[in-house]
């Protein structure tokens, strides 16, 4: 008697993300999340150093060349994440004003303006604040 045929399993394409430019950009965008997580860890280390009175030690660590390189990558990744995520909003949100559908560029423009404003407020409080 013949053994029952095994279930068909298509061969896995291990390099699927390199097949088209869109796949590569998709994977790169997803991988920005690793740097999002790293940035959070970096901020927690900073907060821990400030609260523990070890800011000078943290500044020395942050000035290590490998750390600067890592954070330059993190900056590029978080900016890529920000641009792609804020540009995605019109796909998820449809805004209608009296039957007029707000075009995508207006929603994206609003998001990017908000990004700029929030960044300016944070930079103001970090660098200067109200004395």
């Amino acid at each position, binding site marked *: 008697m013949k053994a029952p045929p095994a279930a068909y399993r298509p061969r*896995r394409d*291990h390099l699927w*993300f390199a097949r088209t430019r869109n796949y590569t950009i998709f*994977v790169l965008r*997803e*991988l920005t*999340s*690793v740097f*999002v*997580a790293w*940035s*959070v*860890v*970096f*901020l*927690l280390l*900073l*907060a*821990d150093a*400030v*609260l523990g*009175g070890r*800011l*000078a030690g943290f*500044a020395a660590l*942050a*000035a290590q060349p490998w*750390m*600067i390189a890592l*954070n*330059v990558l*993190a*900056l590029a990744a*978080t*900016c890529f*994440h*920000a641009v792609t*995520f*804020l540009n995605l909003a019109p796909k*998820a949100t449809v805004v209608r004003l009296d039957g007029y559908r707000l075009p995508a560029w207006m929603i994206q423009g609003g998001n990017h303006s*908000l*990004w700029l404003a*929030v*960044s300016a407020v*944070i*930079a103001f*409080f*970090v*660098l200067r*604040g109200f004395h």
Partner: protein
Amino acid sequence: MRRTLEPYLWLLFSGGGVVAALVLPVLVLLFGVLMPLGVLDWPTAGHLGGLLGNVLVRLALVVVVVLCLFHAAHRIRHTSEELLGIARFDLVVALLCYGGAITGGVLAVMLMF
């Protein structure tokens, strides 16, 4: 209809995406690049301590940490499964990713309060 956790995880994911987009680049630019390179001076410990002394700032930081970590956990879970072909271990991967996010959130709360 059976209720699942999925919508809430997606809510955490998209909330984290927005918060990460608005808040992280400027903080990494300032503390991770410009200050270490000497382009900008480090603020004094007193100034940064004063900022963290405000309970609203500490609360905001905890919210940022929790949302960003859940956003990252969700993406890392699905991307690692697709990239490495380990979708059959979804339960373990999910536990590791969300467990990491919960641990980070707990650490942030312990640090701030």
